């Protein structure tokens, strides 16, 4: 059965279409969720995409956190629903207290669009179990308020519990504490990541296909939810992406192939 992944569109969401493309390429069905609607339409996982929800006025993610759809998403996430927040989605998850810490203006005070190399440090989440521990992937960082901060006790707890999901390999490009690029909730089902894996799914339009593993991992996890944390290498060949005939996606192989590049 095809996994159904919900993608929330807030007013000002920008990467919802890109996220749907990545989810589809990974072999799942992308289900649009509207910020103003209640209910999650029975999806198996939810992604909060990048963008500037509500113009990011007041504070990034601060208004989106109160959208009607969040009233259902927050309890579902606390009950174990896999949730991935990318960029603005990460900010919303922090504002909703599903993840600890906060994201503030970049250290350089300017928006940065740059390819960055991430090191995957936890494969114990539904979004990363398809990667190998310490695997390096190249993805796109594009944000103005991507500096991850938390108090020292929280940072220590994140590291001790293995909740740091990915770090910037070559130093923090935005001032993030301890080079943190992605973190998970204590249960591991909720992940927030500042760079954009959905912009690294096809070498034609991004820096390789190393980001596809986030979506392929979830698809595999949702098909076999009882076995998170294992690497389903070579399983569940995803449906072919329209328009990508020259580059068969081979979703579950993509992360490993990327590692050779970097």
């Amino acid at each position, binding site marked *: 059965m095809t996994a159904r992944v919900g993608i929330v569109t807030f007013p000002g969401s920008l*990467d919802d279409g*890109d996220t749907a493309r990545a989810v589809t390429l990974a072999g799942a069905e992308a289900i649009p969720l509207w910020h103003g609607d209640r209910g999650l339409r029975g999806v198996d996982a939810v992604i909060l995409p990048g963008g500037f929800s509500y*113009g990011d006025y007041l504070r990034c993610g601060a208004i989106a956190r109160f959208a009607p759809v969040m009233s259902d998403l927050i309890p579902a996430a606390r009950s174990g629903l896999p949730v991935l927040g990318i960029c603005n989605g990460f900010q919303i998850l922090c504002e909703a207290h599903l993840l600890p810490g906060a994201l503030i203006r970049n250290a350089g005070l300017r928006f940065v669009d740059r390819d960055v190399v991430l090191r995957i440090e936890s494969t114990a989440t539904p979004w990363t179990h398809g990667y190998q521990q310490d695997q390096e992937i190249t993805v796109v960082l594009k944000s103005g308020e991507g500096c991850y901060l938390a108090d020292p006790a929280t940072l220590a707890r994140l590291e001790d519990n293995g909740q740091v999901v990915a770090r910037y390999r070559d130093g923090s490009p935005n001032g993030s504490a301890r080079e943190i690029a992605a973190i998970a909730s204590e249960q591991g089902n909720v992940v927030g990541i500042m760079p954009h894996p959905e912009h690294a799914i096809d070498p034609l339009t991004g820096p390789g296909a190393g980001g596809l593993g986030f979506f392929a991992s979830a698809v595999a996890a949702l098909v076999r939810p009882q076995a998170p944390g294992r690497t389903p290498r070579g399983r569940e060949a995803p449906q072919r992406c329209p328009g990508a005939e020259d580059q068969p996606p081979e979703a579950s192989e993509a992360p490993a192939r990327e590692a050779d590049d970097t």
Partner: protein
Amino acid sequence: MSPGTVASLDTVALAAATPDRPQPYEELGLTEAEYARIRQLLGRRPTDPELALYSVMWSEHCSYKSSKVHLRQFADKAPRTATLLAGIGHNAGVVDIGQGYAVTFKIESHNHPSYVEPFQGAATGVGGIVRDILAMGARPVAVMDSLRFGPADAPDTARVLPGVVAGISFYGNCLGLPNIGGELAFDPCYVGNPLVNALCVGVMRHEDLQVAAARGPGNKVILFGARTGPDGIGGASVLASASFGGGEAAKRPSVQVGDPFMEKLLVECCLELSAAGLVAGIQDLGAAGISCATAELAAGGGSGMSVVLDRVPLRDPTLGPAEILMSESQERMMAIVAPQHVERFTAICARWDVPATVIGEVTGTGRLEMTWRGELVVDIAPETAADQGPVYNRPAARPAAQDALQAASPAALPRPASGAALLDTLLALLGSPDLADKTWVTEQYDRHVRGNTVLAAPENAGVIRVDEQTGLGVALATDGNGRYSRLDPYAGAQLALAEAYRNVAATGARPVAVTNCLNFGSPEDPAVMWQFAEAVRGLADGCAFLGTPVTGGNVSFYNQTGDVPVHPTPVVGVLGVLADVRRRLSLAFSGPHARVVLLGATGPEFGGSAWAWVAHGHLGGHPPAVDLAAERALAEVLVAAAADGLLTAAHDVSDGGLAVALAECCLAGRVGCQVSLPGDPFPGLFSESPARAVAEVAPAAEAAFAALCERHGVPLTELGTVGGDRLEVTGCLSVPVAELAAVRGRVLPALFG
């Protein structure tokens, strides 16, 4: 009492009864003759709101009154092509790119606002051009920016440039449009008058094309988007249509304030409205705001329109009718909607949190009538404002100093002779702000959003995928060279066209259409008018020859400080079509042992060159000789070679010549190359002869590629091979690519932090 209250209200009846009341037409930028003509058209003096409306509609910015007689050539000389679905005169031209898709694109200036208030000026420049594209029924898919500033180390550049870049970054990123390229150049002539030209491209299905016309009496006029405030009042007349002469701070309220979040909602809302078939006509609100939208819609439909100005939602309740008509508040659109569709229309707007208000309806009277507090305050024939503004055939005269300028040939300048001197020249060029690494700027722009960006800066052109199944896509490049145009505006315009055309072809795309932004000084100066006339003539002739029609564009006059105009700076945008974006060519050298060739012929051409400017601060002589037949042949070779997979990289040769082109290919590919040049290395390395490109030939494709070049009569010169980590020119110079990267990379961060 505030203006606009009933006590101070000027009505049509009052205007008829008080013909001699003095009116502030000069303050609004109208001449005495123009004011007299308004009185003649109306048969009475205008009301204050009518005067406001005419003043903005007849401004240089909106009426093209000084440029119209020249711009006609773009239509008169336009090449016969079946690909144009809508041409000049619409909000933006529309080009058929096949498979049922159409593309609309346009470039527009926001020079003066960006000088007065760099951040908001540049931000709203992006917003304005995006709404032009939206008004055609297209989804905006990418933006580009062509930027020119004073000297990079001038104190005012440190104020203007970071603000402009931050404004573009703020608006475009939040709006969710990838910024795929453009230009950044510096010259002392722009110190008090930067050029900020913004381009947007949009995609639609043929059947989605919208018209800017109010037809069908009884249809409703709906204003939707942001509420109207006191910002940008008189922007078109006060800011964009006059020279700066001090007091810029007082003009700050003339600059609009942008809200990209509202624009994003407006984009999604408009596309949903169009898809639902609820729109009978649509117009964006840009320069001249409600004045322009109502007058153009009514004139376009050959109908009448009645508007109740009290219904316009206001951010500032003290605004009166004249201010409401002149306000350039951003993020507003106007639609003509059949009565039975109004409910669904407003429901879709509500879903997107976009305020929508019925402010009037289409009538059969042929008049544009507006009321305020129940009184008739505007009653005009709409075409008198929209289409029948003044037209000036202003005097033009070749400036006396032009001969001396062209006589000051660069031939006498000392040239580098030794290998060490040639290397120093290359490093000086790469370390000059014009040719430096632009990452400091482009890194502030989101180039990935929407997931269809195949190429972006620093590539030859931006490439956007249009169809994920077939791989159909478009390429866009903008180019301009103020130095060339200063030396010879006719040739300069053609060189700008040729370079953008070449850049598009270098990605493998077939160039099909042109947009332009013509940045000049005051049209009241005969020397400037001569430059303008020559540039338009050159561009129209060039487009006719190359078969690429001008689909639209923008004229920006009064780019001068005091009596000193900027270099005449026609900026040309060329649109190309790629049948399959997977076949696109990057400029990056790809791998060891690949062969590098030069396409085209090189002569000793240094007039207006980067070398003459950087090494000697010299501007004189003639620009490089234009050869459009050679440009066309080169483009045919590049397009065919890309489609057949004969090349693995290509890059146009322009500013700084072959040496800079090779360095850029090496830097992009992070690999070296070893080349040998026949003859004198100095012109070989630094001449700016056009119609040339560097190419990296695919393995085993050498013979096929040579045959292709021969078939098209394109000279082919073997240069050498890719490999190693140094750029080496045999017998001349050898330098690590890492050193080139360092020299080029530190320039903008050192200047701007």
